[in-house]
């Protein structure tokens, strides 16, 4: 029998449907793999029983001749930003340590309804704030990848670093991620897997711990474009409980996948050719163009003139929203409370939040509070919103000339943990290519292209028109077919 943990979503689903193996066998195989991979620190809690119970349900349904869901028999990792009923949900923070919701997020519920099971809650940057998975209260996640000739622990990217590490290490066939300014795409690129952030509003935000509400989007992370298409189909859909949810039908992306790009135009944004980008990344971008041309697409130059303002605008808008979204963690109703003897309410707030939030979270709350303050609001927040509108307009204009945009996902490959902690701005620059699509709410995906000289994966990013996940997936598939990315981390854990 093949090693079940080498299989992805599609193969597991088809295998379970076809009777090649049972869902329980799959769940057991992954549960074991998860248990053996503690060194990665990818999971905050593991939930083997959840995975087994879901698997048994699928096996019983199959035995009864019932129709199986699109994720039937697939055990997945759940980023610990999604509220899961009765299972600790922390956003990798101390302030929510021990918090067990009495509700289930819409996206996770849809996945369970589709027949998936949960291997555990995946580590992440605290409150999804970070690009290296070094801000979790529960410790860093270590990438399964190593730099050639070095034993240094590498970053799996962030904030969905537990997700990327788990999928790359094949201890989960797929995982949920969330992307606010690159948190699905950057870790996917760092670990040689696929990840798609759909159009803002495709996936309900209900039950996802909020970071920046106008940007947060859930999406799948898996090892192939097909797997992403399948899983996104199970996650997406209108939710009346989220006022920003898109009231649109969910297309059958999997069924419509088509890597024949004849008649399509692929835009290459000239402003993304910026200083500080690795030559290997620029080379892979050139290679990507060639692949898409080979798939029949026409390559056109496009301009996104406000690109350089996107990152600064993002670091105003996202912290502003976060400073307000995180106000609810105050020690009054749930989560941790630090109540020194004899103090009043204000002191309780201060003590609780001082102890409950990590440094990066505090930094962003401070930035956000500052930019919304009287006297600074117009100079920062209002200005950033104008930039955001201009960035969105850039894309609109570019999409008059092309159907999908090809760009690098990140300016560099993964880096060793601890190597970027000197200056937060260097870390923020990691998301420079990812953030514009977030500000514009567009579907965007990272697919693995190649490995660099150090043997580390590099990703290519595809950005589509609003609601055109299909166009993004199709172009991603064309790259996947030509890249033949088969590199795998050596198992050291």
């Amino acid at each position, binding site marked *: 029998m093949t090693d079940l943990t080498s299989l992805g979503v599609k193969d597991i689903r088809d295998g379970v449907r076809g009777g090649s193996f049972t869902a329980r066998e799959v769940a057991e195989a992954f549960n074991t793999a998860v248990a053996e991979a503690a060194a990665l620190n990818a999971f905050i809690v593991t939930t083997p029983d959840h995975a087994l119970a879901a698997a048994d349900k699928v096996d019983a349904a199959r035995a009864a001749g019932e129709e199986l869901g699109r994720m039937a028999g697939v055990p997945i990792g759940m980023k610990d930003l999604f509220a899961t009923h009765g299972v600790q949900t922390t956003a990798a923070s101390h302030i929510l340590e021990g918090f067990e919701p009495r509700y289930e997020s819409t996206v996770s519920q849809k996945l369970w309804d589709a027949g998936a099971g949960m291997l555990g809650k995946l580590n992440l940057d605290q409150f999804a704030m970070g690009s290296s998975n070094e801000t979790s209260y529960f410790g860093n996640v270590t990438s399964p990848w190593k730099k050639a000739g070095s034993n240094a622990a590498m970053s799996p990217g962030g904030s969905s670093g537990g997700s990327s590490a788990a999928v790359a290490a094949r201890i989960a066939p797929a995982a949920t991620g969330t992307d606010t300014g690159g948190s699905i795409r950057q870790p996917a690129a760092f670990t040689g897997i696929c990840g798609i952030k759909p159009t803002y509003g495709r996936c309900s935000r*209900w039950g996802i711990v909020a970071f920046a509400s106008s940007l947060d989007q859930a999406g799948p992370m898996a090892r192939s474009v097909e797997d992403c298409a399948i899983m996104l189909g199970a996650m997406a859909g209108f939710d009346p409980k989220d006022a*920003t949810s898109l009231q649109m039908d969910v297309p059958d992306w999997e069924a419509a996948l088509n890597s024949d790009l004849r008649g399509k135009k692929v835009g290459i944004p000239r402003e993304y050719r910026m200083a500080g980008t690795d030559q290997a990344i620029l080379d892979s971008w050139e290679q990507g163009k060639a692949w898409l041309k080979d798939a029949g697409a026409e390559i056109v130059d496009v301009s996104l003139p406000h690109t350089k303002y996107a990152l600064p605008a993002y670091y105003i808008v996202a912290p502003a929203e976060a400073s307000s979204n995180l106000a*609810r963690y105050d020690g009054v*109703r749930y989560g941790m409370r630090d109540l020194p003897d004899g103090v009043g309410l204000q002191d309780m707030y201060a003590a609780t939040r001082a102890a409950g939030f990590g440094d990066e979270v505090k930094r962003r709350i401070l930035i956000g509070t500052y930019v919304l303050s009287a006297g600074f609001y117009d100079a920062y927040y209002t200005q950033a919103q104008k930039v955001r509108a201009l960035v969105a307009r850039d894309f609109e204009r570019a999409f008059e000339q092309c159907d999908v945009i090809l760009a690098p996902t990140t300016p560099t490959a993964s880096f060793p943990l601890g190597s970027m902690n000197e200056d937060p701005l260097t870390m923020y620059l990691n998301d420079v290519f990812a953030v514009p699509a977030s500000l514009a709410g567009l579907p965007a995906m990272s697919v693995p292209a190649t490995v660099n000289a150090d043997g580390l994966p590099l990703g290519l990013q595809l950005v589509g028109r609003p609601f055109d996940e299909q166009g993004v997936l199709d172009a991603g598939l064309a790259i996947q077919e030509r890249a033949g990315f088969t590199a795998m981390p050596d198992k050291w854990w």
Partner: protein
Amino acid sequence: MSNYRIQGATGEWEVVIGLEVHAQVTSNSKLFSGAATAFGAEPNSQVSLVDAAMPGMLPVPNRECIRQAVRTGMAIEAQINAWSRFDRKNYFYADLPQGYQISQLYHPLVGEGSLLIEADEKAGIPEDKVIGIERIHVEQDAGKLMHDQHPTMSYVDLNRSGVALMEIVSKPDMRSPAEAGAYVRKLRSILRYVGSCDGNMEEGSMRADVNVSVRRPGEPFGTRTETKNVNSVRFVMQAIEHEAMRQVDVLEAGGTVVQETRLFDPGTGTTRTMRSKEDAHDYRYFPDPDLLPLVLEEDFLAECRASLPELPDAKRKRYVEVLGLTPYNARELTAEVETFARFETLLAETANTIGKVEPEVATQVANWSLSVAPGVVKALGDEGDPANATAAAQAAILAMQDKGEISGGQAKEIFEIVLKTGRDPAEIAEAEGLKQVSDTGAIEAAIDAVIAANPDKVEDYRGGKDKLFGFFVGQVMKAMAGKANPGVVNQLLKDKLG
């Protein structure tokens, strides 16, 4: 123009008043969650995950709350903004689970409108006055802290957390406590007509923040203070009076009024400092990213408009112009929803019973509704059951009176028995002998007897002493034991005395 002035030691001062009224929207569920809104429920029994601001919870606007606010805006003939937006007002407090209140600062649902307060000489309002309304926006209420449950801790009740409020902001157009009182009463009346707020100030469904400043007549506005959460018309007036006097004292002593937030103490009728401008929160308002802009479709607006009832001003005008009521009666009858509802039901019933059109009986019904019936009810106190005062019973009494079968006094007596027993008015009149005699034969006989017994007075009357007519009426009524129809008596007496 109000002539209300404060006589200071150094001369006259004018008071400038603006009110921000918070009115709880009548709806079964909260502004952004499905939780219920009933008053007086067990603490924390009406709290959804959204109201408690659990992680990942999101607000979804309640269409009914928006509808009620729009209808209210239409009732004050205000600009309705088809595009509005919710903003977050950020501050920390234990009764505010989200750490922010969802409100509307930059783009309110309702723009400028106005409200008419009517002349009321007795109250010190010499003529009708239009008070400008700046805006109405919708926002969430906070929860409630309870400090009396535990010796060292405070408890939080989140039942009110997230309940929809309309904040109705007036322009600084009022110039006396009386005008402010009339404004609140009129606003309350409109809200209750529209059905968008029950106006129950005791239960906190309506409360006012009172902005007061003073100035020399004709000079620019002075510095204002804001007195928070005043919860009755009387307290609003007291707070203004006290605050204006206090400001005059400060200014006349050479001081300056500090812009600050103050609290009203209902026990003493005074205000005191709550926080000064220096400690004012920086609320860091910004558009709520969980909510899309609120866009109102034409259909929705049309439905809101079509669902509006006849409003107080229009009703009052109709009562005077169509029903022929006095302006006083019209105002009294239209002030409260219950009053006009009872009046209109009785009017229709009475007109129907008598077989006349409404304007012909309106004055009779109005007098009955405003003074006769309430007088009887009041005098009877607990002995009467108001449930017995059906429109049918009262209409029957009014019809008998209209036909001359009973006198005004008999009507009251019959109504009294109706209230006590619920018996049928016609049956009461018959059984209790509460009918007046309109039979001309009996009355003529009585008149003849009176004339025969008083020949000298007859002579005087015929000689020009007109005042004696009353004497004859009295004698005839006495002879008839008070049961003669006075109209018939008058007519026959005139004929016979010549």
